[in-house]
């Protein structure tokens, strides 16, 4: 089987988009399920640790090894089936999200989950329960996962189909392909009512498949995925709207959010599918038309709405009226009705995190960026808290994110390594504040190796230990993705 062990060849596998660094002995590039089973079984008998990796666009060190072996899913890259009639796709984990989207578009189909970074693998998005702008309308990746095939840490195969296995009274009973039954006791937790990707997904009568979505590779290796699809929307209106101040922008977000929630399926009424935010500082990082941003802009939002050829004009009129009644300068807004220009807006949005990450890597810093979300009615309070905290510190920062879901990324832009520790302290305060307000410490990137202490801040040590016990049940020899979600010390 293919592997690389020459250190010069494996450098790429020792890093992710957050510039979290690691080390390993070998990188395996399995081409089949059998290959993976072999690697996993042999690692079990030799007590070697395995770290699974996708496209390594993750932002929490999740795919970065600390020792042992890396198992890269890049060669498991086949789209196995797309059904236009029944609207589903079956894929291997190493298929690029961008590639799947391209294929679907040709077939007039659509897969809504859209992490801002499209050069990630489907497997990575399942393992982190990724979400994006369109999560506002469609929910996170989880909502679209129908079936998973998983190789458990001991090499057993588990096939899960949504709707087939549910927990009873916080107890899950899983049956592997070779008919082994595994009982898992679930901690009784309350999950926040926001977007959420911190620790395991747990509810009293949960579907077994949901435990494996967002598990960050700690419970198994995902080898095949069946995704639900929808029909491609006929028309999309995409707009970038500029505001003098952030509070005006947040005010407008609230209005648009409330209207959109009123008519969730509508294509002939105001109904955003995504609402994204940029503060003034983000404009320093933006690529693609920065020169066109109106002067004196304090904040901007990017909104998309799905509509039909028939309703498009009426909808545009509604948006104009809504903007005018809210004193927005309609002449300064940008609008895209063609796919080409819509993609330019997407690029504009993507350029902010991508340039921020690039700045961090270039200077060899580590990313200090929040991934917190709070309930909608707490957004303004939380936004102001974070902004004020950052302002007072004197450390540079930018704020952008999926504001429709009250989910913001405040990233510190360090000027020197000395600012790292103080920034990390402030970051922790922001996590704690989000939890106080009923939110989450991670809405989409997951915990990985960089955010473990905040999971404890959120749920407390006892619950996190109970979560770790789930892992221990499935991975008794502690070989798979050790260091993700849980501090390894927790297993002692």
């Amino acid at each position, binding site marked *: 089987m*293919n592997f690389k062990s020459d250190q010069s060849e494996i450098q790429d596998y020792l890093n992710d988009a957050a510039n979290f660094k690691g080390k390993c002995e070998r990188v395996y590039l399995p081409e089949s399920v059998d290959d993976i089973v072999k690697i996993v079984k042999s690692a079990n008998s030799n007590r070697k640790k395995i770290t699974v990796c996708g496209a390594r666009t993750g932002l929490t060190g999740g795919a970065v090894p600390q020792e042992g072996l890396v198992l890269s899913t890049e060669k498991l890259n086949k789209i196995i089936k797309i059904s236009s009639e029944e609207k589903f796709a079956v894929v291997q984990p190493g298929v690029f999200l961008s590639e799947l989207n391209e294929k679907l578009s040709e077939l007039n189909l659509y897969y809504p989950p859209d992490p801002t970074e499209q050069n990630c693998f489907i497997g990575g998005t399942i393992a982190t329960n990724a979400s994006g702008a369109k999560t506002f309308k469609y929910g996170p990746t989880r909502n679209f996962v129908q079936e998973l095939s998983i190789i458990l840490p001991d090499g057993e195969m588990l096939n899960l189909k949504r709707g087939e296995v549910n927990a009873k009274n916080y107890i899950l009973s899983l049956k592997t392909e070779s008919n082994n039954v595994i009982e898992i006791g679930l901690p009784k937790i309350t999950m926040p009512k926001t977007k959420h990707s911190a620790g395991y997904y747990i509810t009293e009568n949960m579907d077994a498949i949901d435990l494996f979505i967002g598990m960050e590779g700690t419970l198994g290796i995902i080898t095949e995925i069946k995704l639900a699809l929808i029909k491609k929307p006929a028309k999309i209106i995409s*707009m*970038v709207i500029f505001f003098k101040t952030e509070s005006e922008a947040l005010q407008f977000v609230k209005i648009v959010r409330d209207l959109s929630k009123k008519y969730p399926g509508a294509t002939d009424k105001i109904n955003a599918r995504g609402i994204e935010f940029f503060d003034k500082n983000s404009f320093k990082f933006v690529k693609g*038309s920065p*020169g*066109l941003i109106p002067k004196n802009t304090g904040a901007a939002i990017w909104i998309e709405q799905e509509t039909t050829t028939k309703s498009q*004009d009426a909808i*545009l*009129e509604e*948006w*104009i009226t809504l*903007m005018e009644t809210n004193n927005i300068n*309609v*002449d*300064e*807004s*940008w*609008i*895209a*009705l*063609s*796919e*080409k*220009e819509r*993609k330019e807006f997407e690029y504009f949005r993507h350029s902010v995190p991508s340039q921020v990450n690039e700045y961090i890597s270039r200077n060899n810093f580590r990313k200090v960026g929040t991934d917190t979300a709070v309930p909608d009615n707490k957004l303004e309070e939380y936004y102001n808290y974070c902004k004020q905290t950052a302002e007072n510190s004197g450390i540079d920062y930018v704020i952008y994110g999926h504001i429709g879901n009250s989910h913001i990324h405040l990233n510190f832009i360090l000027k020197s390594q000395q600012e790292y520790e103080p920034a990390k302290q402030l970051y922790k305060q922001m996590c704690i504040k989000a939890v106080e307000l009923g939110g989450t410490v991670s809405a989409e990137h997951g915990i990985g190796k960089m955010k473990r202490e905040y999971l404890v801040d959120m749920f407390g040590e006892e619950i996190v230990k109970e979560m770790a016990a789930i892992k221990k049940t499935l991975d008794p020899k502690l070989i798979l993705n050790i260091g993700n979600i849980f501090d390894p010390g927790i297993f002692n």
Partner: protein
Amino acid sequence: MKIVVCVSHVPDTATKVKIGDNGKTIDPKDVTYVVNPYDEFAIEEALKTRDAVGGEVVVISLGTDANKESIRKALAMGADSGILLKSDSYRDSLSVAKALAAEIKNQEAQLVFFGKQSVDYDAGIVGQLTAELLGFNSVSVVVDFKLEGEKITAEREIEGGREVIETSIPCVITAQKGLNEPRYASLKGIMAAKKKTIEDKEAAAAENYTEILTMSKPPAKSPGKILGEDASAVPELVKLLREEAKVI
């Protein structure tokens, strides 16, 4: 002053183009069309010039009804009116230029903006031909443009530097990337464009001097070969580079 912008309606470079059954044209099915990217710079410069000196901007496109989408886009960006020169049979660059020149003359325009090149057939010549037919001055591949009274100062990119040219209206300018940053249409602009008129006219007839014989796609790249993963593959590699690829 009356300013004309000539806009060609071209396949989006992101679409996969197939050759049609006749082997002489592309198959338009499933192809999305956009404003020729260089023409966006032309539109922007026309609008900026109008806003500075007053007057109106007329957009002209030669082709079929489908071209109206691109005319509409220019109107949404802020152009004042549009003209579709209807023509549904094949025309070569000179024939296109003759029809455009006839309409520009009819409009009594003094300043005409083109893109430097249409990304479909890439001739890069319609602007200059039109200038010649009209007896206008012309500066091509322009990256900086100034109009003071009748005087024009234009900069063009040349190998290793820039050339500054002074001339006067009437003039044709062909736009190069870098001339400006084309604006996005605003929400208001989109709605206003719906109320602006696009006039349909028959394109002036003109003979073709060239003919497309065949059209073909570049040969597909042959797949790579993996000979091995370590030093043991080197002799075979050297042999193939020498005998098959003939590069060493």
